[in-house]
């Protein structure tokens, strides 16, 4: 690239000059008129050149020197592209430029620029020459090639002419051949049409016999298909007598066919799938769907009612009734299975019936289902007296599980909900039953005690002591309660299909078992005891004082310990299951000896660092150095950070919030010496016990450290307690 703007190729000289040189050389080298002679046109003088041609040449030169148009334009030195004295400008005017030079520059500078310009021109000329030489050979060979191409094309033209005449001849022949064949072609087409028609007619004429044969053979499907195919044609041509006869025949046969199908359908012995096929064929024969629906359902009803009857028979008064598990099994496989099949077939066959059809099915299922439920409830009611919960729960489980399938199929009929309701009702009744049982047991115990007390003393033989009686009563009641709890607990076992229903997860545990059964029993105990106290005057048969004494002791025991024990037991079995469902959560490795750490309020070095004897004024960033450094290495504690749903995470959250609150409260107070020591002891105590509840015990340490440090700061007279003393105090507790 030429240095500076002055040396860049530009029309800073009369534009004709370089072209003149090129033209001369080209003229000397070129042989004859050829594309190479193009540059030779240029030396017509500057006046003759069109401005755009000059621009083009200018552009080519620029291109050659690798100076892009944009670069030239975007030159920072060129402020005005219209300036006629700008050597590189598009509007450069040599006269103006020369004028300007002559007027503005001293002689020496003029000379300099002249020599400079001459040198540039010379350099440009030589460049141009080289360029032309380099390209000259290419021009020559291009001319040769073009000449050769001209010859070749002339030859090709002749051949193309010949080809065209040949093609014309061929077209002619082809046209003649088609003309001669035209006649025959038409005749063949007609014949083919007649043939097809005849075959169709033959099919029609043979149709009655074919249908008859199909019906005889029992190939109902085939018959229906034939009938379907012929129906439309027969309908269309029924005004012709011959076709009419065929149609009449067909109708007779079809009617017979339909009759047979219905017969089969009604007989129904062959099971649901074949029935479904019958219905399908009948539908294809154009039988009214409504009627078929009704009939189908009526038929299904018959079968299902039979199932119900057999169930009822099992239920009947005859003593050898099967156990409840077997009963629900029968019901499940017989009735519920049948209902499933019916529903599936119905939905498949009568899908076209739309919502009305579905509604009909739902009503059907609802009605039969309610009858089934009534039966099941009657059977379950028979169980109420019995004591075996496990069998009952298993039966209920089967019953409930079995009804889930039709539940999905017949969502509208609400069978699953009804089943769940039944199970819930049974569970409630069981709770009531157990409560009765507990009450009875309690009263039984009391009767025993009364008898023991009233029993005549045999001389020399000491009656059982009151303490012994009391222990007997207490243990027997407790064992009864435990047995009831265990029995009831079966309802919430994880593998039972209804245990995840909301009722069994919530209300059953809290309201039913805890409040209804346990608390209810304790209440009734109290009432009974109360009634013993209240009644003595009325009945005459006064309550023996020993019994009252025993009852009072029993109640006292219950008040102090037993009730809370029983409730805890209940809670553990029923309510705290949430805790068992969630995992423990992850805990960072905990050092078992963490409790050995004692709080030293602050080490002596830290104290000195913080409170230099004569304080220096605050210089930014060098204060609280130690505590700041300490904080630098401990992570920021997010107090109210989100928790995961596990025990440890929740507890960690609670402990963090509590300790942070403690910290903030400590900072708002001023402590005396003993106040500080109390905080010290409290924190050590907390540290001994809190670490086992948190995910990261380091967190507890940090927060407790901060509490103690803050308390020390908030104390005008900080004399910390000896760590050993703190330990002793805490361990004594």
């Amino acid at each position, binding site marked *: 690239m030429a240095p500076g703007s002055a040396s860049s190729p530009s029309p800073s000289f009369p534009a004709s000059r370089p072209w003149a040189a090129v033209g001369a050389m080209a003229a000397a080298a070129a042989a004859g008129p050829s594309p190479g002679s193009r540059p030779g046109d240029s030396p017509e003088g500057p006046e003759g050149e069109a401005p755009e041609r000059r621009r083009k040449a200018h552009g080519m030169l620029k291109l050659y020197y690798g100076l892009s148009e944009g670069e030239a334009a975007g030159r920072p030195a060129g402020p005005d592209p219209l300036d006629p004295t700008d050597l590189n400008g598009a509007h450069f005017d040599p006269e103006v430029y020369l004028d300007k030079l002559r007027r503005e520059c001293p002689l020496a500078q003029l000379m300099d620029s002249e020599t400079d310009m001459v040198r540039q021109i010379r350099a440009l000329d030589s460049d141009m020459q080289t360029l032309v030489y380099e390209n000259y050979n290419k021009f020559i060979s291009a001319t040769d090639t073009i000449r050769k191409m001209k010859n070749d094309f002339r030859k090709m033209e002749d051949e193309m002419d010949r080809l065209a005449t040949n093609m014309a001849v061929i077209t002619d022949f082809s046209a003649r051949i088609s003309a001669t064949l035209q006649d025959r072609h038409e005749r063949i087409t007609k014949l083919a049409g007649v043939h097809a028609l005849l075959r169709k007619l033959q099919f029609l004429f043979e149709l009655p016999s074919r249908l008859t044969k199909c019906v005889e053979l029992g190939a109902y499907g085939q018959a229906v298909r034939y009938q379907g195919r012929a129906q439309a044609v027969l309908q269309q041509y029924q005004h012709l007598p011959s076709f009419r006869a065929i149609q009449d025949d067909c109708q007779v046969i079809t009617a017979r066919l339909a009759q047979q199908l219905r017969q089969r359908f009604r007989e129904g012995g062959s099971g649901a799938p074949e029935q479904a096929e019958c219905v399908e064929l009948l539908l294809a024969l154009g039988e009214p769907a409504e009627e078929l629906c009704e009939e189908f359902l009526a038929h299904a009803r018959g079968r299902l009612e039979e199932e119900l009857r057999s169930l009822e028979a099992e239920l009947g008064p005859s003593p050898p009734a099967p156990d409840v598990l077997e009963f629900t099994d029968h019901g499940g496989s017989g009735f519920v299975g049948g209902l499933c099949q019916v529903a599936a077939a119905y939905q498949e066959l009568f899908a076209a019936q739309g919502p009305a059809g579905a509604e009909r099915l739902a009503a059907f299922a609802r009605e039969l289902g309610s009858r089934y439920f009534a039966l099941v409830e009657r059977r379950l009611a028979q169980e109420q007296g019995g004591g075996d919960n496990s069998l009952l729960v298993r039966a209920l489980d089967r019953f409930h599980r079995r009804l889930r399938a039709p539940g999905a199929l017949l969502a509208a009929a609400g069978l699953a909900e009804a089943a769940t309701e039944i199970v819930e009702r049974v569970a409630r009744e069981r709770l009531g039953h157990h409560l009765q049982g507990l009450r009875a047991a309690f009263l039984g115990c009391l009767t025993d005690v009364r008898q023991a007390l009233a029993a005549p003393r045999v001389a020399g033989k000491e009656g059982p002591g009151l303490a012994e009686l009391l222990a007997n009563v207490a243990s027997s009641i407790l064992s009864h309660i435990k047995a009831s709890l265990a029995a009831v607990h079966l309802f919430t076992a994880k593998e039972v299909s209804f245990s995840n229903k909301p009722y069994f997860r919530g209300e059953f545990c809290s309201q039913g078992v805890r409040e209804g059964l346990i608390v209810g029993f304790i209440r009734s105990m109290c009432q009974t005891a109360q009634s013993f106290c209240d009644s003595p005057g009325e009945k005459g048969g006064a309550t023996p004082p020993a019994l009252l004494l025993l009852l009072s002791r029993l109640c006292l025991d219950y008040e102090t310990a037993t009730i809370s024990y029983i409730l805890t037991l209940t809670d553990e079995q029923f309510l705290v299951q949430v805790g068992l469902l969630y995992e423990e959560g992850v805990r960072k490795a905990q050092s078992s000896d963490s409790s050995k750490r004692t709080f030293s309020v602050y080490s002596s070095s830290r104290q000195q660092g913080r*409170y230099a004897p004569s*304080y*220096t*004024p*605050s*210089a*930014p*960033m*060098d*204060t*609280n150095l130690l*505590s*700041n450094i300490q*904080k*630098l290495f401990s992570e*920021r504690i*997010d*107090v*109210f*950070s989100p928790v995961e749903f596990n025990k440890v995470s929740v507890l960690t959250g609670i402990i963090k919030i509590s300790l*942070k609150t403690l910290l*903030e409260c400590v*900072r708002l107070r*001023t402590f*005396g010496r003993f106040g500080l020591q109390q905080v010290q002891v409290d924190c050590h105590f907390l540290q001994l016990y809190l670490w086992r509840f948190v995910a990261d015990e380091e967190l507890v340490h940090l927060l407790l450290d901060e509490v103690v440090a803050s308390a020390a*700061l*908030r*104390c*005008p007279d900080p004399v910390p307690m000896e760590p050993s003393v703190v330990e002793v105090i805490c361990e004594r507790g």
Partner: protein
Amino acid sequence: MEDDAPVIYGLEFQARALTPQTAETDAIRFLVGTQSLKYDNQIHIIDFDDENNIINKNVLLHQAGEIWHISASPADRGVLATCYNRTSDSKVLTCAAVWRMPKELESGSHESPDDSSSTAQTLELLCHLDNTAHSNMACVVWEPMGDGKKIISLADNHILLWDLQESSSQAVLASSASLGGKGQLKFTSGRWSPHHNCTQVATANDTTLRGWDTRSMSQIYCIENAHGQLVRDLDFNPNKQYYLASCGDDCKVKFWDTRNVTEPVKTLEEHSHWVWNVRYNHSHDQLVLTGSSDSRVILSNMVSISSEPFGHLVDDDDISDQEDHRSEEKSKEPLQDNVIATYEEHEDSVYAVDWSSADPWLFASLSYDGRLVINRVPRALKYHILL
């Protein structure tokens, strides 16, 4: 942008009192009071040189006791009031007093820090704001935009209005009111409304916010259970007369319209621990600053309830049509309340935040470990609000 980096300054004592020098409108200056039970407490006068990002400070001795609250007179640059603890005979009393700083410090003399250490100057006591009847001052607030003659102090369950006379050297109890009711009621915080001719004061006690008329010293409104737990602080919207913000131990910041005390206009729940401080920007009330003991300072943009909910209305006629069009478009952008920035330079609980009285885009926050951080509103937002 490096200009937006926070500037941090450390005190060697614990501190929880911070105020801008209210009467100063040219220089950015904050006052910080320290808390130390064992050494003489100080008031640091912190000058921030906005252009060079340099902090200059002067230290004044406050020998009366540790400072729990500080507020500067709105009229006189040299006057300030503090609430401080005095311990005597193992009893702690919280008192309040009005002080004057040495004349040469009023406008921040730029001594080098080393020199000032030797000549730590002392505040001149003007008057005490307590008498034997009332103690345990929770806070002191000056009448905003007033002549610095009226001041209110909250002591236990009393609200006391003082008149400062004879160039503040004498405080006369003008009127007072007290909170009746069961239990030990105690004011935690109070603010003087700049609206209604400065006749309203709002206070916080326990979970309740109350408004008072200073002329009759009677209660004018009461927001019961404003927060689930203790209310820590409140502030009035400087541009909308019925709006105020409150914050408390339930980690929430709530915005109230005092004409409807049944429920808040808006609730923010961004902090993860008690919120100790809430401050409206003095000029652009959509900018709300909160400081919390989760060590964070949060700057929120509450456009929807601010006095300029749709940005500045385009009322300048001289801007060209093109610009007009553009700014109209801008105002159509959906404006949403959001958190602008969370500043996490603190490592301890932040007990005080406040805006500079001189530069509306600059604020300071103070954490218990004595770290003062000066921050700016993000530049992009500033231009968004201004343009």
